[in-house]
């Protein structure tokens, strides 16, 4: 049945053209980042005398190296906490049969309906009162609290499809509740843990509003904030700006191209028909 007709061929041609048009912004990004600052020709024209100077300058002036370390630290710690606390909590919620368990679940789910902006102002004052502004601590705490409802939603829906028999077998072997969770349940959660890591990881890495509030003017910048500050200082020097933009997305782009299959699956796992 694998017919490749002229219709398929036409469709293929059309789609390639559309994809090329779609990629024009990315082309401009790369094209401009290798351009000499004195070269004022059209951004669409291929750069005549490409240079890599901008990258060196952007790297040393933007503080992106330090920002990447900060972003990586915040992302790894937040996502780890989300996986550990989220899976534990979801297990408790999915398996508890006490009277409080259903209301507790819905109390967490309310978090899906409350936008972050509502608590933004008071939370900021609360952290200021604790003297934690300018450090990465509030960010980690915020990301964990903020992304928990969604994480729990993923975990509990998944958990409820795992038959309790697996755990019963383990409990007959004499394993306690926690040992059962660690040795039997958590390994079974692996596919959904992948989705939890991908979606939360990208959210944390890309978030701009929270660092803008909590880290503006501090040395502990994250990548989006470092880009923002750097561009604000150099708006007219576009090749330099574009080099910085390109540097800032390279880590995620590399990860994307290496893990694109898993990553896209993680995003799409929301609806399997």
């Amino acid at each position, binding site marked *: 049945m694998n017919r490749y007709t002229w219709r398929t061929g036409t469709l293929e041609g059309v789609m390639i053209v559309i994809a090329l048009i779609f990629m024009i912004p990315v082309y401009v990004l790369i094209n401009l980042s290798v351009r000499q600052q004195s070269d004022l020709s059209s951004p669409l024209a291929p750069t005549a005398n490409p240079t890599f100077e901008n990258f060196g300058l952007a790297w040393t002036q933007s503080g992106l190296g330090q920002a990447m370390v900060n972003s990586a630290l915040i992302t790894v710690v937040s996502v780890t906490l989300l996986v550990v606390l989220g899976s534990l909590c979801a297990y408790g919620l999915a398996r*508890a049969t006490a009277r409080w368990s259903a209301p507790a679940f819905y109390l967490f789910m309310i978090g899906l309906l409350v936008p972050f902006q509502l608590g933004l102002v008071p*939370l900021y004052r609360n952290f200021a*009162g604790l003297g934690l502004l300018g450090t990465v601590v509030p960010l980690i705490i915020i990301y964990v609290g*903020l992304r928990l409802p969604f994480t729990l939603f993923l975990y509990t829906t998944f958990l409820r499809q795992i038959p309790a028999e697996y755990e019963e077998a383990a409990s007959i072997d004499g394993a306690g509740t926690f040992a059962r969770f660690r040795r039997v349940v958590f390994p079974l959660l692996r596919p*959904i843990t992948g989705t939890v890591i991908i979606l939360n990881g990208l959210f944390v890495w890309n978030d701009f509003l929270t660092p803008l509030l909590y880290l503006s003017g501090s040395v502990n910048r994250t990548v989006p904030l470092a880009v923002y500050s750097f561009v604000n200082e150099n708006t007219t020097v576009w090749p330099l700006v574009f080099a910085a*933009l390109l540097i800032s997305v390279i880590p995620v782009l590399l990860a994307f191209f290496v893990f694109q299959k898993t990553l896209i699956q993680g995003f799409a796992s929301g*609806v*399997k028909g």
Partner: protein
Amino acid sequence: MTSPTIAPATEPPPATAKRPASGSSTLRRNAARTGSRYLWLFILPAAVFYVFVVLIPSFQGVFFSFTDWNGLANDWTFVGLDNFVRLFEDPVSVKAIGNTFLYAILSTVFENIFGLLIALALHSRIKSRNVLRVLFFMPVVLLSVVIAYLWQYLFQVNNGAITQLLHAIGLSDANPNWLGDPNLVVFSISAIVIWQFTGYTMVIYLAGLQGVPQEQLEAASIDGAGPIARFWYVVRPLLAPAITVNIMLSLIRGFMIFDQIWVTTGGGPADTSHSLSTLVYRTAFQFGELGRGAAIALVLAVIVAVLGFFQYRGLLRSGGAR
């Protein structure tokens, strides 16, 4: 916010309804046997974060939206509905409410039309489909801030890349001020968001299309169904859950839009491109009027909560239908 607080479940959750039926007595026996009285200990650590970051501040937010709090501790008085009255009288915030809906609707409509069309085209025998899927999805993983700056440059007046493209296709007199014209700016920023997230709707549609058997499409086409009839009668019903999830995700993303506006225009020119999110930030953190900021945030919260409620119901229904 780059991505939404609300996102789809791995599976539509039929579990809540199913749970009592699926042998809760077994579970309870099992639980009693292994001491699940301590299960609340599993929940506690997560609950602490959640209460501190979401619940308490949200209640505080609601509370302060009725005050004239300026951020200094304990220096506030109740002003009743003043903040809300001002919100609906001030042309800047009225414009921001309209803009927020416009951002949400424009991005939702076009992300979904483009995403669905691309998904349908890639759900075929074309050889480059995997490469194309990766290319269309790529903007989703890029930093919003980077995308916004990139487009700010593309949208430059006089010889910006997009204007040059217009010239290249024959519109040689066109010189729109994409981000500087109050009548145009919301559409330009929406275009950025659409470019960024079309790949997102595409992968969800592609996943949904995997449930559409090729044989069924072929049978329909042998029966003489054209592409539109095939889509409407064969594909669309099977794609319903993907459509629900995608529309809700795009809408909520659209209503919460912040990064793309803040980076490209900061809400300008003359405060014409604000969304409620950027207005909260400006009012509360740049003007220091925290009470008013909280009121704006509450209006946004009500809009998103109403939507989220429908999303939850929609998910339950599309899950229950099969």
